[in-house]
């Protein structure tokens, strides 16, 4: 092939074909660039993703606060939103009843009640992801709320981090 091109280049006709070939390679490259840039342009204009990241994490924080399986005080008759059952402020209890730890980790949490040590759900995931939440790939929600514990009002802090689902 190379020897044929060299032979062709030696005469005038060959020179023309070689010049044409270079020109066509350039043209095809231009066309490909044009096609891909148009497809890229169309893709950037069409927003197909539904971004519910903040809502998802707010629901997790709400679950911690209000669900009877989480921190909220409850008895056989009813649940008491806004009142924290101190006995439920326990990592193992929350992992068993509130947000179960599974192989596929979807969310990491840090819960901190004033005057108590913070507790974690999916701690390793939380510690890995929390520093990365500046990135658009991850979401973070932070809630600071006054809650009633026994007869006292205390501050409860919930930080939820997750990769976008």
């Amino acid at each position: 092939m190379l020897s044929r091109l060299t032979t062709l280049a030696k005469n005038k006709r060959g020179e023309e074909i070689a010049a044409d070939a270079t020109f066509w390679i350039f043209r095809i490259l231009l066309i490909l660039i044009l096609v891909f840039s148009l497809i890229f342009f169309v893709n950037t204009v069409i927003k197909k993703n539904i971004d519910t990241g903040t809502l998802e994490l707010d629901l997790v924080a709400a679950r911690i606060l209000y669900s009877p399986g989480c921190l909220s005080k409850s008895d056989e008759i009813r649940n008491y939103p806004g009142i924290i059952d101190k006995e439920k402020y326990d990592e193992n209890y929350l992992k068993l009843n509130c947000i179960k730890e599974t192989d596929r980790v979807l969310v990491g949490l840090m819960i901190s009640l004033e005057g108590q040590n913070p507790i974690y759900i999916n701690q390793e995931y939380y510690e890995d992801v929390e520093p990365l939440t500046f990135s658009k790939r991850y979401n973070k929600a932070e809630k600071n709320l006054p809650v009633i514990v026994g007869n006292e009002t205390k501050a409860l802090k919930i930080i939820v981090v997750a990769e976008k689902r």
Partner: protein
Amino acid sequence: MRIFSKKRGNIIEMVLNPLFHVLIAFGIILLLLNYTTSVGKSSYYEREFLSRNTGLMIEALQAAPNNVTAKYTLSTHGLILSFEKDKVVAYPHDVDPETSNVKVSAYPIIPSSLKIDENILKPNIITGAKGKEVPFPFKLSFQKTSERIIPTTEGYSPKHEEQKEANCIFVNTLDEVWADQKKVLIDVIDVGKQGATKDNILSSTFAAGICGSLTLGTSDKAFLPINSDCKTLGMSIDDHIKKIENLNPDLLIILFVNTNNETENTLKIYYVGDGADKNKEIKLACQIISKLLDADIKYTSAQKIGGLPPYLSHISSVLKGRTSILIDVGNINHLQNKDIKQISEALHDAVKTYYTS
């Protein structure tokens, strides 16, 4: 480009070169059109929305302090919704989720101690005009107890299966309602036992029942620019035709009652089936049928007016040239008040849906 050169080229340069360029340009345009069409036709967004929306609903219920029942209607776009242990999956009704991952959207649910009942919810697909499949929306219901969340469809009626023959299509009748005030005329023609001769139309109790409980144009007036009237227009077919022509309604619904008819409690809906309004008439007929799905009244599918029985042929002329349907109510002797009320409500809801979708 050598085509613009002063030097005269040979046949290849003058014809084939530009042709080649045109072919390449055509190929690029085809490729891009194909791509944009595939994006437009894709149900990706609907699948994502459906799985995510219902998944978030379950997560919201997990956060609910007490037992909750949540009900809402959700447009399905022909998708199947599968609730699994730890995710909600949405996929088109003609796709096997085991083999086609491309058209399946899954939303993983953050696990809790609440068990999610596994369930597959299928839309009620009806076959519309030209074989087009039209899904009815889900009526979703979620029940949250202290131990589980139960997703189900609410109000599903096996009667939906009978709907398969209805010619139900989507056509935009929403935009036109705001163009100007619309006149909707519901004309009740009760020929009693005599059959449809020329001058024996009764002021029947049926007309009073239908029109009495029809609230269109009163409660809906505030948000729909509709002026509606429901009455028996005269004592003869000619009277009716003349008055309909004078009133010139935008939407005409004729209810024809014939107690001599052998078929009881059976509605037959006819549309003119010609002209630009054909699809609108089919839509309205289908809307009425769909509103009667849970009623005890039997109905037959909407059909072209060409198949009108002879006793209705007198009034077929007035239907032409405007958006109109004819409902043959048949023998009303066995209709109870609740049935009449249901027909009236179906008319009301159908017209409302017609002008709001």
